[in-house]
């Protein structure tokens, strides 16, 4: 099927409809005008004809009597030549169509012409006699037949039958009527044609305007939406429709935009979930590796020392056996702690306390209080920003985060003479970044991500299982935020940052700085 735009089609409909309406209107107007004109003409003609009829009757009767007298002598004497002369003379003052002189036998004697082609014909119809007054007048359409007796002194020589054309005034009136009718109709037709031309131009203009309007209001939006749908189908969701009309098309465009937004959100969520899943997979792999490696280590120790204890027991080296068993117990304890940490880590993903509005400053204060034993021996100064905001979060988990980050800062202060820890926040674009900054040993940039690994310890001699930062990241991510580390390198201190989604943030409230 040939493709035609909606604008063109509807413009054609409008043009055809307008043309048809105007044509009907013009024809109706023309018919009415012509009809009225004919009525007026007919009334005028009838009025004039009525007024003239009586005069005509008298004039025709007088003409008949005059001719009857003048025709008598030549007719009585059968002087055809003089009859012809009289007929010819009569033609000069009467509108004679035909003129025949009839003899007493009722046959044509002469028709006034040289050929006299009607000579001898029997005259149809009755001829007037005395009782008729000698004259009869008969009107037939545009002609009048005058029959009169040619007589003198009671002697009838014959008759004359004169057919007269319509009188000049009547012919003039008819000509005027026909001419005026033709002129009026011609004028009317010219007007109709002119008007039709104007209407055609106007209709074409209207059609063009309609086409433009429809194109603007319907076709173009539909085209845009069609393209947008194609873009959406192709996966390109970053070109929202700019159409903003207060109608169904606007609704459709807004629905398309919403659909695109939803798709984009879903796609982003999917992408995030996919990334999260990938991270979790990687984490799981690391976890497997770590678990298998780190749990294997105490087992190897236990097995080795168990074998050694057996050897020592067989050799009767009881002190050695005691030491071996102590090492076995220590390895078992380590394994126990590792398993506890694993359990805690896994619980973070499963056990979620209801969120609540929490003053971050209070949490920091509680964490510092809990870690007082770690800070005071080392003389660590803790600075807490006064404007830490309220947050909406799992209070206990967020306390664990702060506790781990502060403990971590105190733990890796190194040989810093003036150890210092700072808790605060900054605005990075649209998000608030909370941080715990220290001036301790710092971290090589290549290890900034690694420190968040499970059981990962950059310093093997350091206490702990290496679960703390993994736990921090896990808790923050469980809240929908991010956690990362920043450091300019060893000896330059380190900053551990985390964010919380905006929904988790409440209005910032001033809090007293703690140190």
């Amino acid at each position, binding site marked *: 099927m040939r493709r035609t735009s909606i604008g063109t089609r509807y413009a054609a409909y409008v043009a055809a409809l307008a043309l048809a309406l105007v044509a009907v209107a013009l024809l109706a107007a023309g018919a009415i005008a012509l009809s009225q004109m004919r009525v007026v003409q007919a009334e005028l003609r009838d009025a004039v004809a009525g007024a003239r009829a009586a005069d005509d009757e008298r004039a025709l009767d007088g003409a008949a009597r005059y001719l009857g007298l003048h025709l008598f002598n030549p007719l009585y004497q*059968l*002087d*055809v030549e*003089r009859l*012809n002369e009289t007929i010819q003379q009569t033609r000069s003052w009467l509108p004679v169509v035909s003129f025949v002189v009839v003899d007493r036998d009722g046959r044509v004697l002469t028709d006034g012409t040289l*050929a*006299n082609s009607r000579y*001898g014909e029997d005259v149809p119809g009755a001829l007037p006699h005395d009782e008729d007054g000698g004259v009869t007048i008969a009107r037939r359409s545009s002609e009048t037949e005058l029959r009169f007796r040619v007589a003198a002194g009671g002697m009838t020589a014959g008759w004359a039958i004169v057919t007269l054309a319509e009188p000049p005034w009547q012919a003039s009136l008819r000509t005027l009527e026909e001419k005026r009718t033709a002129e009026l109709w011609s004028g009317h037709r010219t007007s109709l044609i002119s008007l039709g031309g104007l209407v055609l131009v106007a209709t074409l203009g209207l059609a063009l305007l309609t086409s433009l309007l429809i194109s603007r209001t319907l076709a173009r939006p539909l085209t845009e939406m069609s393209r947008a749908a194609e873009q959406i189908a192709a996966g390109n969701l970053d070109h929202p429709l700019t159409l903003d009309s207060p109608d169904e098309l606007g609704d459709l465009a807004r629905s398309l935009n919403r659909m695109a937004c939803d798709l984009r959100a879903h796609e982003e969520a999917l992408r995030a979930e996919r990334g999260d899943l990938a991270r979790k997979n990687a984490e799981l792999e690391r976890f497997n590796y770590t678990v298998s490696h780190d749990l294997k280590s105490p087992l190897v120790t236990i097995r080795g020392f168990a074998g050694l204890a057996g050897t020592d027991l067989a050799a009767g080296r009881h002190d050695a056996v005691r030491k071996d068993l102590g090492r076995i117990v220590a390895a078992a304890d380590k394994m126990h702690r590792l398993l506890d940490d694993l359990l805690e880590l896994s619980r973070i993903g499963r056990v979620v306390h209801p969120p609540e509005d929490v003053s971050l400053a209070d949490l920091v204060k509680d964490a510092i209080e809990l870690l007082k034993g770690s800070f005071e021996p080392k003389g660590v100064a803790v600075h807490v920003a006064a404007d830490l905001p309220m947050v909406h979060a799992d209070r206990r988990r967020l306390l664990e985060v702060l506790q781990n980050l502060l403990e971590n800062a105190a733990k890796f202060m190194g040989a810093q003479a003036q150890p210092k820890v700072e808790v605060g926040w900054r605005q990075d674009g649209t998000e608030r970044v909370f941080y715990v900054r220290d001036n301790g040993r710092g971290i090589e940039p290549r290890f900034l991500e690694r420190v968040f690994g499970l059981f990962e310890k950059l310093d093997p001699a350091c206490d702990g299982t290496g679960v703390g930062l993994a736990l921090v990241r896990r808790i923050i991510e469980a809240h929908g935020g991010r956690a990362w580390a920043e450091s300019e390198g060893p000896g330059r201190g380190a900053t551990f940052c985390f964010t919380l989604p905006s929904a988790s943030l409440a209005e910032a409230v001033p809090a007293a700085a703690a140190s």
Partner: protein
Amino acid sequence: MTTRAARVVALLGLLATAVTGWTAGAAAPAETSVTARFGVIAEEPNEPDRMFTAYSPLLAELRQRLAPAGIAVSDLVIARDLDDLSQRIARKQVDFVLESVFPMLALRERSRSLEPALLVVRRGRREYRSVFFTRQESPIRKLADLRGRTLVLQAIRSTSAFALPRAELRRAGLSLVAADDAAADPKAVRYVLALAEVNQAVWVLHQKGDAGAFNEGDWQALPEKIRARLRIFERSRPIQRGLIAFRGDLAPATRRAVEAAMLALHQDGAGLAALTHASGITRFERLTPAARDAVLDWAPVLLPKHPR
């Protein structure tokens, strides 16, 4: 002014015209000193207008053509009848006439000075005949059958519709008398005058007469429906169509100038149109002596009282 004096004056006029033409140039019209007068008889005595209408173009042409010769042409002289015209000729009020043979011979007999000079060729014919006709159903088959019957003729002065039929009847041993002549021989052929050829035919058809006679041209001109009801039963001898005759005492120069002008009329469009307008004349031809004698030979035949 006597005739001699008039001639002298005319000659002097012509001489003066020649001299003036020699000195002033041929194109300049000569001073008018001679007048030629053209006379005819009215077909209807009380209707001279027909003749004026018919002959005015011819007269205008003659005036135009004779003016350079110093000859003026007067208004047409229309006589009521033969007597009137012969008297006007006698009084020198008419210098030349146009008539058919019978009136021309009658005028010549009366005036004693009329000389036929030109032959009138009418509708292409120099001669014509009279035809005798009657109704189709009539028992008349020959002239002798007209004995005691009524013949419808046109007018007394007509050659073809009176004089020639009368001559033919006389030649057949029949006399022609007026229908209202109570004392006439009952075996004579009676005549009535219908004044027009078509009337003659209608009268015969309406039995106002038993037969009619006119020239064969008029027969052809009859309406078809009328002619179809009639039949010709006799034809006359041929006779000249018409003549131009000059008064015998007219100045020869004037006569020659008029003759020359009339003979040349048919040679150009205007002259031919004027001739045609004058009762269908085709041209004028000079009458040869033999033809003149032939014309004069008709006198004893056509003129009833003419010595034979």
